[in-house]
């Protein structure tokens, strides 16, 4: 009996604190633990395997299963009930053969036929792409300056970039209403400074949407860029200078190509959420703005058309997964080439 216990105890046990060890030992006395461990051991599963399996388990629980559910809904038809869609499998009679499979590709066909969705897609992509580009143009010099500042300052400066996260996202977007509205902070300031005579309409324009997205997502651009630029080997720049390369050219020949993984990561982190962005266009954008996030919201909550909403979500996902996979491949390739 005691022998068995000793075997059952995981080898890491020695390194754990006494309290945890005690708890583990208590756990090991419970039948379910020993039963599970025996079962798992029979399948060749050890503690190490469990650690590796954990992320997969996470993905399964919080990505794959929800995805399958949404996929399932996207292929069913609407009906006035709770939940507001027909089940995929349906018994129409008593017999086994009366099992009916209700696959309804009509939702996707509908997305394709109604130009609203296509325009919303294109518009979202465009808004996201332009905002990503602006974020990159602002974020790159920012990240560069921080990465090249003295070590004493880097932490402080990065902290300042991340600091806005400590207040609520919604609150910050609301604050922009106060800044951009007709008698808001910005207009009042410009009138006071004599730049303009009458308030310029900024709220509920595309400008406000860009402003909001760039502002909200800038840290996501700066962080991967900073991480990349900070670890760059500066002797490479010295080598370039030594070979007759002026600083500006050295930047375009050495720094920029080597920071591409950071650029790609930053752009992905901004572009992907920006495409599906709902809050910023609703609060700051024009009322008739066609963003896919807004369309999704309307289908789901206003029209209660869950299947079409799901189809939109799936289409959006597929549309975004393709470039992610592509870019991740490209990034892996450059990263591999980058390790000297």
């Amino acid at each position, binding site marked *: 009996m005691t022998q068995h216990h000793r075997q059952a105890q995981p080898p890491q046990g020695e390194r754990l604190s006494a309290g945890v060890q005690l708890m583990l030992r208590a756990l090991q006395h419970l039948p379910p633990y020993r039963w599970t461990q025996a079962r798992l051991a029979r399948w060749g599963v050890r503690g190490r395997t469990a650690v590796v399996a954990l992320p997969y388990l996470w993905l399964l629980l919080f990505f794959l299963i929800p995805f399958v559910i949404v996929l399932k809904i996207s292929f069913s038809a609407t009906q006035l009930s709770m939940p507001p869609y027909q089940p995929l499998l349906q018994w129409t009679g008593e017999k086994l053969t009366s099992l009916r499979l209700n696959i309804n590709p009509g939702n996707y066909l509908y997305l394709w036929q109604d130009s609203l969705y296509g325009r919303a897609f294109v518009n979202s992509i465009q808004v996201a792409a332009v905002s990503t580009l602006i974020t990159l143009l602002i974020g790159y010099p920012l990240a560069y300056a921080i990465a090249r500042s003295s070590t004493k300052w880097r932490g402080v400066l990065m902290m300042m970039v991340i600091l806005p996260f400590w207040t609520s996202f919604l609150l910050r977007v609301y604050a922009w209403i106060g800044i951009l509205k007709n008698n808001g902070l910005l207009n009042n300031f410009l009138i006071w400074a004599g730049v303009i005579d009458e308030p310029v309409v900024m709220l509920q324009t595309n400008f406000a949407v860009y402003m909001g997205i760039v502002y909200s997502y800038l840290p996501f651009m700066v962080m991967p860029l900073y991480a990349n630029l900070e670890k760059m*080997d500066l*002797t*490479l720049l*010295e*080598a*370039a*200078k*030594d*070979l*007759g*390369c*002026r600083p500006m*050219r050295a930047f375009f*020949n*050495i720094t920029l*190509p*080597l920071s591409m993984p950071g650029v790609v990561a930053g752009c992905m982190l901004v572009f992907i959420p920006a495409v599906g962005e709902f809050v910023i266009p609703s609060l700051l954008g024009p009322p008739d703005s066609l963003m896919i996030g807004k369309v999704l919201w309307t289908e789901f909550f206003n029209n209660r058309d869950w299947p079409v909403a799901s189809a939109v979500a799936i289409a959006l996902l597929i549309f975004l997964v393709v470039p992610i996979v592509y870019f991740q491949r490209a990034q892996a390739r*450059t990263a*591999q*080439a*980058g*390790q*000297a």
Partner: protein
Amino acid sequence: MASSVLESAAIRQPWNDPRAEPYIRIERVTKCFGEFVAVNDVSLNIYRTELFCLLGGSGCGKTTLLRMLAGFEEPSSGKIFIDGIDMSGIPPYERPVNMMFQSYALFPHMTVEQNVGFGLKMEGKAKSEIADRVANMLKLVSMGEFSKRKPHQLSGGQRQRVALARALIKQPKLLLLDEPLGALDKKLRERTQFELVNLQEKLGVTFVVVTHDQEEAMTLASRIGVMDQGRIVQVGTPKEIYEFPISKFVAEFIGSVNLFEGRLIADEPDHVRIACPELDRPVFVAHGISSAPQAKLWVAIRPEKIQLSLKRPAGDENWTRGIVKEIAYLGDLSVFLILLDSGKTLRVTRPNMWRHDDENITWEQEVYLHWHDTSPVVVSA
């Protein structure tokens, strides 16, 4: 006739020729990082086509001095002239100098070909010319077949050659090499050392090589500058440095040495006699020295210049007696550690010229040690 012999000696040893114009003139250069003095009042002349080695322990300022030559650091005070031109304020990309970095600093996102051609591309040379010269250069360092590879696909030795090719392609008048062979194993290192010397002779470039490996410095250099704590303590040919070190530090840094503290008891222009408490007889040195009387002195004798015998040597100077405590057989030679009556342990090496030694010296045996009167060197502390 005599003059032509002198002439050729002057070409081979321009540092002994008062008329020769140094290619690099370092004048009283000091470099401080905050309070810390990394390079301290260094003055140095380096001549055309020399292969000059900067040798010294870790942190003694070798890299800093080299970086000032390349233009990555400005001297805190003092001046550097290259080819007669004052280099202060001239950025690295405008100096006629190329550097091979300690870490090689190859551009990871470029192929071998692009790395080597980078300097020419920056000069704005035509594509075809770049391709030709890169191909030639890669052939010179026998890396032709790797031209399409990225640096991470190369071995350490191959990277080192690419770095060398990249630094040489612009045909610089001066090439700076910071620990060029640091990453190579011993065999490859020795081979590359000779390749480097050959290349240097073939191209007629002036090399300044930094190393902390004294054997490497001896193999490569026309002259060696020994550095200690930011200062140049001695400059000379490898032979001069080895045979006539001027200080205890240099003697100990280059090769191994037996040192005895002592004081002068006879000081003549052509010889001196020194009493060392650790030796039971005085040391007779067959050359004069320039030292203040009563100054603390050290007698340095190299291990290979001490002979062992079982018979008592004649005379009353330059020998002593001890007991063999350790014998290490190294193949080409054997190392003996011998304990003197005074408690001092001496290191003696002997070439293994014959398979069977007729004078079979073994552990715990009493032996006599003696040396020629030209062998000891008197050094200051």
